[in-house]
């Protein structure tokens, strides 16, 4: 019998990519009874009804076709208007916007369009797990740029100045941040823009959580002088409109960039889901109040968790965006992996170790508050008894 050797079949590149660190504990959790999770990265709200209704109307009345490669014209127009309304920056719906399959595809397009083999990309950490593997798949080198708790996990020029080499092509700016919840204000971004204006380094600004901020409106780097020209802007519908399963995002950039990266989308994806695109027009044009309601509810949960963790002695800085809190577990003397593993086995609460988001996440755990208050309160009472147990062990 001829046996095929898959190890030889598969590319060396794909074999070298590490699996996501978020998965590990959830694969274990899935085999256990009575586990309560604080792990997911998607809203617990259902997609607003008007959006679902719009999709139903499309199913009933329209012929479901591919549609234009870059996305439906009314949707691109609505995206353009939305960015203009929020940031007073205009992108041409015809030439400067592509509707993608989620924010993830938008990130992939941007990276593949920019990176030549050996090019370096600065990846601000802690961050979502997709950037470094996608950089590597595109043939680039991911250069981690750790941010620090002392700066509330904001990026400063000092954090990355020394990492720049002649091969540096891009800086990935993921704010509001998953997993820390950190945001960047105009004052935080200005020195970074000032620095970048003298370079040919592009920014990939992943603003997928931009609608979910608490206390202040999100500010985008594209608003600063000279930065629209230097930025590939990524956003999507998943987090703001609770539309994760609809798989819809977008990328905007100056025309010379869009016209090139468009080819990857055209040949690889062809076009984004037609039903979702039709529904998404409704999201952008008539769901501001729905988003506000969700943000209000997230804010109640956020305050509860931050205060609870601080009360329990796990220092937690005040995250102003996304739907995560990122408490420090250093006082327990455990590593974040150990903490999460014991919390899962002993109290049946699934969380994600900060180390899954880069080395600078070590000493923290990520807690999602995309859960009902009831769920969060039960989880916190389990965490409290776990901490009491740890305390007793020390004595």
């Amino acid at each position, binding site marked *: 019998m001829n046996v095929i050797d898959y190890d030889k079949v598969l590319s060396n590149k794909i074999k070298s990519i590490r699996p*996501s660190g*978020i*998965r590990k504990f*959830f694969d274990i959790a899935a085999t256990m009874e009575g586990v309560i*999770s604080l*792990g*997911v*990265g*998607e809203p*617990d709200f259902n997609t607003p009804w008007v959006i679902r209704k719009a999709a139903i109307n499309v199913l009933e009345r329209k012929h479901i076709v591919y549609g234009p490669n870059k996305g439906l014209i009314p949707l691109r127009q609505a995206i353009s208007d939305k960015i203009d309304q929020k940031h007073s920056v205009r992108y041409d719906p015809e030439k400067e916007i592509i509707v993608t399959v989620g924010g993830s595809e938008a990130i992939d397009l941007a990276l593949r369009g920019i990176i030549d083999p050996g090019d370096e990309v600065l990846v601000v950490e802690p961050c979502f797990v997709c950037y470094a593997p996608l950089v590597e798949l595109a043939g680039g080198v991911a250069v981690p740029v750790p941010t620090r708790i002392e700066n509330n996990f904001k990026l400063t020029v000092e954090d990355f100045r020394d990492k720049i080499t002649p091969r540096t092509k891009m800086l990935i700016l993921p704010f509001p941040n998953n997993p820390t919840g950190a945001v960047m204000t105009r004052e935080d971004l200005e020195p970074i823009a000032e620095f970048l204006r003298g370079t040919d380094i592009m920014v990939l600004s992943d603003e997928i959580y931009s609608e979910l901020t608490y206390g202040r409106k999100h500010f985008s780097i594209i608003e600063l002088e000279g930065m629209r020209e230097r930025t590939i802007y990524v956003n999507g519908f*998943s987090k703001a409109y609770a539309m*994760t399963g609809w798989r819809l995002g977008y990328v905007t950039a100056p025309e010379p960039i869009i016209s090139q990266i468009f080819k990857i989308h055209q040949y690889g994806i062809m076009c984004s889901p037609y039903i979702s695109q039709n529904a998404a027009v409704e999201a952008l044009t008539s769901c501001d109040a729905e988003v506000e309601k969700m943000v*209000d509810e997230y804010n*109640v*949960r956020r*305050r*509860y968790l*931050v*205060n*609870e963790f601080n*009360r329990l002695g796990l220092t937690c800085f005040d995250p102003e965006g996304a739907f995560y809190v990122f408490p420090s577990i250093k006082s327990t003397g455990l590593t974040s992996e150990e903490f999460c593993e014991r919390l899962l086995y002993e109290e049946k609460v699934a969380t994600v170790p900060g180390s899954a988001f880069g080395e600078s996440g070590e000493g923290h755990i990520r807690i999602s508050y*995309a859960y*009902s*208050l*009831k769920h969060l*309160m039960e989880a916190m009472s389990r965490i409290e008894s776990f901490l009491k147990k740890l305390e007793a062990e020390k004595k």
Partner: protein
Amino acid sequence: MKNKIISILQQNARISDTALGEMLGITPEQAAAEIKKLEDEGVIRGYSVILDEDKYDKSTVYATIELKVTPQRDCGFDDIAKTIMMYDEVESVSLMSSGAYDLAVEVKGSNLKDVAFFVSERLATIDGILSTSTHFILKKYKEKGIFIDGEEPDERGLG
């Protein structure tokens, strides 16, 4: 503030002042004072418990009774509603805007016959009640925003 407190209490009226304060960004003392104020103003009328009757007492029977009523001079439907609500068997009384009937009454009884007799002997005989129509409740799926049966499993992934 008022709306937020009430929306949290509606999800869980037994929440501690500490947790409520944490959610709203105020001290536990302030949270307690806000609730006291709502109680004193009569906005909050009481606290109850939502049961899964099937797990608690399978034999209890609930019914919704639709009543057609002749409004009384000077006080409209109020007098009749007040008479009805004095009965212990009556869980709720609401005035409806529908043309088909005027008052919706929720009645609790220990068995079907109990409820049927209560309607025919106590309610139907009140002056001004023109007709009654009784609907027995077989199963409650959700009450006051709380799932009793049929909560969907969490199918979310790990994005």
